[in-house]
């Protein structure tokens, strides 16, 4: 049995001369919450659009539930709930019309669950979509995405437009509930504290490439901030080997390492430097280190 609900292999996509995805490979296991991180224009939405079959792969392959979403949209989309970044719901519909309309597409639609979500989100069934605030639109979109209890829930920037209470208490609870029921949530975000709170696995996308893909606990335990003091002044310390990010000048440097403490000590000894401190890192710092780093190069120049 295929344990991966989504498999992307060497996916490439260009818009004219701009490369949006440059050989992305990604596997999302069934069950749990998968966070796709990246800055603006990193390619998160493009990956999600390929997953939904809204974009055909120019090169590489995408399989959702083992199916090609472009060739078999019904087979894949019937099992996917999707909340788009732009909350593009039809303005002319009323909420009850939106619910009735959406229900017709999904055999597994749960009317009681839809009604409970509508109450939870405080949506007036007679209200027109065009009269909803951005946050209310997000809630309406979430209702439609959730009510058929999809095997895969895809949320593109789900927190955008939601107030902190809804974001933390409702969205977080829904995501965890779905994961606890054995279903899968794939969501993109650049709100890293939120991702750190709910995601089991993450992938960091930067300039159309996957920088990191691992379990959340491995990501957090596998990165450390190391304060070093060199015996002689160092003018340039490009990230290489276990070091993925460096800041500083002269004798004192602050480095980010992707390694265990033993490897760090061995590497520091090789550099003939002294460790001042080794601190754990949060996802925010890891993300910045991963995406704001300079191109990789080898060697230390004194």
């Amino acid at each position, binding site marked *: 049995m295929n344990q991966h609900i989504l498999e992307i292999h060497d996916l490439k996509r260009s818009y004219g001369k701009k490369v949006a995805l440059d050989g992305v490979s990604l596997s999302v296991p069934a069950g749990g919450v998968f966070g796709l991180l990246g800055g603006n224009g990193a390619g998160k939405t493009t990956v999600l659009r390929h997953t939904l*079959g809204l974009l055909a792969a120019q090169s590489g392959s995408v399989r959702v539930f083992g199916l090609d979403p*472009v060739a078999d*949209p019904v087979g894949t989309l019937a099992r996917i709930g999707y909340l788009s970044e732009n909350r593009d719901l039809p303005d002319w519909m009323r909420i009850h019309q939106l619910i009735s309309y959406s229900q017709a597409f999904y055999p597994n639609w749960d009317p009681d669950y839809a009604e409970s979500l509508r109450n939870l989100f405080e949506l007036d069934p007679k209200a027109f979509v065009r009269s909803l605030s951005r946050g209310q639109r997000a809630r309406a979109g979430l209702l439609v995405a959730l009510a058929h209890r999809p095997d895969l829930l895809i949320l593109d920037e789900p927190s955008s437009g939601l107030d902190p209470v809804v974001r933390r208490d409702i969205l977080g609870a829904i995501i965890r509930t779905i994961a606890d029921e054995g279903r899968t949530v794939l969501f993109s975000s650049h709100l890293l504290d939120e991702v750190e709170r709910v995601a089991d696995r993450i992938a960091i996308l930067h300039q159309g490439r996957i920088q990191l893909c691992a379990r959340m606990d491995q990501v957090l335990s596998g990165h450390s901030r190391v304060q070093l003091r060199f015996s002689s002044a160092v003018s340039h310390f490009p990230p290489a080997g276990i070091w993925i990010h460096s800041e500083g000048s002269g004798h004192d440097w602050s480095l980010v390492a992707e390694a265990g403490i033993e490897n760090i000590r061995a590497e520091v000894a090789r550099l003939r430097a002294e460790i001042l401190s080794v601190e754990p890192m949060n996802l925010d710092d890891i993300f910045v280190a991963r995406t704001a780093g300079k191109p990789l190069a080898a060697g230390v120049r004194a």
Partner: protein
Amino acid sequence: MNPTSLDPSPWKIARVLLADMFHRSWIILTLGFVGALSLPVLILGALRAKGALIVEDPAMILIHFTFAQIMGMGFGASVLHGAGAPSRLFTLPLTNRTILLIQMVPATLLVIGQTMVSIWIQNVLFKLYWPLLGNALAFGMIFATFQSFMTLFQKSALLLPALGGALALESLWVKSRHGPIFSLPTHYWTTVSPLDWMVFATVLALCYAIGMHGIARARCGNEIQTRLLDYLSNAISNFFGKKPMVFQNAVQAQSWYEWNLKGLVFPIIVLMVVPTTAVLWLFTDNTINDLVEALRLEGWMMSAAAMIGGIIMGNMGLSDASMAMSPFLGTKPLATVPWSRLLLATAFRSLVWGVLIWVAVYLLVLAGRELAGASHMPEPFVWWHMPGRILAAWTAMTFGLCISLTGNLLHLKILGGLYCGWLVTVMLVGSLTPAWFSELFTISTLSGCGMVLFSLTLWAWGSALRRRMVEGRQAILAGMVVTTLVAMAGWQWAQGTTPPGATRIHHFLLVSGVLSLAVFPFAAAPLALASNRAR
């Protein structure tokens, strides 16, 4: 550094915005210009080819009057599109006056200039002596009125009655410049009198005042309120919207979506065109036979409205500017082939409603004609005219639908560009070469177009068959339909209604190509939808 150099003046901003407008919209403006000029040039060209273009004929005054309106409206629409909504300027450091002037002055000048240039081109091409200034200034005035009312009323329910009233008054005045209001125009508007200038100046000053008031209100969100109309509109909407809906399946739900959003467009266009025809008839020649004739002609012109309706129906995007399928629709688990079929069914339903409206009005006028005791029909009854009108409207609507269904605005631009390019070439050939060559060129290019359409239909069916979007027996049925239609056209030709010789085969090729479009959408719609869905 001089600190003032960091603060651009409002006029510098205005210049930048205007340059940006022309940079963004030059294609639309060009297409609008050539497109608006195309119908008059085609008709005048046809008249000349038949030797019916007589400069001294009084009917030419009506033709001139009508063409000026067509060109003004056609180009005015593209200028409005290019100018954009004034709200985009509200957050810039510009005064209300500057915003209004940016919106209105260049657009109005463009409309005036375009009308003058277009009339001049017709004068040169067809050796006419039509006056340039009067109608051009009048259209500038009408355009400024349009813009100022749009600015004041925006999306208010009062817009239509207020604008309609103002435009009706202005149109009556323009009509009075060509002779009595309630009859055919009797003379050209050759001299713009001081009184005319005063009218222009007064109307433009009023437009300025209305526009200023509108921008002042809109800029602080204080839009025109129409509580009674809103209440009525909500009451009606609540009455219909409260009905609980249960859809049996996805196709039924999507059909409801398509019909509610876009299905009524074509019937509404027909509903708007019919009374417009009646009003125009009232102000030109109020004999009942002419109204019958106008409605009969309108039946053929339904194809143009149908194409617009089809383009709108095929738009699966979020707006007119973005026709790519929206994620909301793109993520619906509905197979492409049934989806495309329900789109065609919606188009057909829309077409039926539009045709029924037209037929009802036509029959009503015919009954009125009988009651009035009119002596003879202006044109004898021809059996295939009614199915011909419906077929023409169907092909136009579904062709527009398929083009727009691809979700690529470029396709529409290419189509418009090809049409404009052909038209300009025809105009040049018409003015630079002998009449026989010009006619041969026109009919040869049209027959070539027929062959392209035929090939396009074959390609669509071949591709759809290869991708298993249609079945072999459906292809056979489509082939039989096209063969029957072409045979019927051939039989009609055999009755001797077309000129003999070389042009007969050209006409036949053109008509065969157009007839093949009757089955084109059944293969092209799923292909277009599939390409829009996964780009």
